[in-house]
């Protein structure tokens, strides 16, 4: 009786369930709080990064070309997956870093495109759809869990991430590259959309698409760009793996 009285006289760290002495319940509560927190912070930060580095190519169908879009997008957007993969795999043994990042990013992008681009500025959704990175993210995470090696993930996963990007988006993009004869001018459907919806990024001298030299190895443009993208993604993976290590520091300092 004294034991019972003593035990109930104080809250047994009694947080989510007063009287409970099971830390598992506390851990579950923290999980339920942390999961939305981490998802939102990854979404917000990654989306701000994406919109300001590859935004124009991602906003508009007529910017989705075979040279710039498929190089700039994977190279810039492997950053957060690499960093978050380090944190989630190293600290929590969760092989979902890349997939979490791109899912969060896509959610934010779709909300914005629907409510802002279409809902506010009246651009049609088939003009402003965001590119998908999910297949590349799945491959990146799969390479990590199969190899359990950051080195192999960077080399093979990074290469796959860059190479697969254009082909993963091809089902969505193909229709907009159909040729059209519009008032005697040959152009693609994407180009026509671009001319119909005038923006500051529309004029030919501004759109950063299809520019450059050494475009092909004889015939096709896309494979050259895709493999170049893959190689640069390998480099970016390691750079941002180190950023992940750096930014997940647990240091304290006495004075600021």
């Amino acid at each position, binding site marked *: 009786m004294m034991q019972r009285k003593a035990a109930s006289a104080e*809250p047994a760290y009694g947080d989510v369930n007063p009287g409970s002495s099971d830390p598992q319940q506390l851990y579950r509560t923290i999980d339920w709080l942390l999961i939305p927190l981490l998802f939102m912070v990854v979404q917000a930060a990654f989306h701000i990064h994406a919109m300001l580095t590859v935004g124009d190519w991602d906003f508009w169908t007529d910017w989705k070309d075979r040279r710039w879009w498929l190089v700039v997008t994977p190279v810039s957007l492997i950053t957060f997956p690499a960093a978050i993969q380090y944190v989630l795999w190293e600290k929590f043994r969760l092989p979902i870093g890349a997939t979490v990042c791109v899912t969060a990013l896509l959610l934010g992008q779709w909300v914005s495109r629907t409510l802002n681009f279409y809902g506010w500025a009246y651009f049609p959704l088939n003009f402003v759809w965001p590119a998908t990175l999910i297949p590349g993210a799945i491959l990146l995470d799969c390479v990590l869990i199969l190899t359990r090696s950051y080195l192999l993930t960077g080399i093979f996963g990074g290469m796959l991430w860059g190479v697969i990007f254009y082909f993963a988006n091809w089902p969505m993009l193909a229709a907009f590259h159909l040729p059209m004869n519009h008032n005697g001018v040959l152009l693609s459907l994407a180009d026509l959309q671009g001319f119909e919806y005038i923006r500051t990024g529309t004029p030919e001298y501004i759109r950063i698409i299809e520019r450059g030299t050494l475009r092909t190895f004889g015939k096709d443009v896309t494979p050259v760009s895709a493999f170049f993208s893959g190689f640069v993604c390998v480099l970016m993976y390691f750079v941002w793996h180190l950023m992940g290590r750096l930014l997940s520091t647990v240091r304290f300092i006495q004075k600021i």
Partner: protein
Amino acid sequence: MAMAAKVLTIDRRPARSAGGINYRLLAGAMLTLSVIFVSIRLYQQFFAWTVGLDSTSPEFQTHWMRLLYGEFFVEGVAAAAIWGWLWKTRDLNLAALEPSEEIKRYLRLIGWLLMYVFAVYWTEFFAEQDATWHQTVVRDTEFTPSHIPLFFGAMPVFIIMGVSSYLYARTRIPQFARAHSVPFLIAVAGPFMMLPNVGFNEWGHTFWIMEEIFSAPLHAGFVVFAWAALCLGGILMQAIPRIIELAQGEAQRAVRPVTG
């Protein structure tokens, strides 16, 4: 006789929630923010294209500049009130903090961080929206129907939440009161620096008149400061081991037989 477990707050009054975190308050705060930002979004829907195109018009002054001044006032009052309250009610005797209360404070810190991150989400929402406005309408001044909710609405709100979460940790949790947490400093100061960067951004747009491309080098400052949010992982890496240590200590204490 079983006694009801009584939990006291730092000012010795019974806590409203013995569960460590006041879910109603947290949900209410998130709902309040959502209502405010959804209302602003609807306000944009009705008044942006009609009276928001020409900053020299009297209607623009009425509908948009008043909103701007209102935001300044509300944010100033909110910042003073929240930060002042956090400082005034700080714990002056952290050495005597009970482990159970310390766990609760860690939970509340996660609640503050959740509010911070939620406010950053709304910033991201209005940030991409900014592209739709400025790539169609261009700009005549800094104060546009997309900038007013973004740079002077959502950004100050997340700054208030970020500083509040840091103040809460510094004044109530021994681990963060003893020394400055580097990831916490970066996670708060980095996004905060986006606000001064707004000034640089507007100077750049005025000087180079470049509205055509969103992914322009001028915007790189915002990108770099957004990376700072990754430091939230570091904060959790500091807090979680301590929470586990406290929880396991408490669990052992709860099952320890009472002698005497």
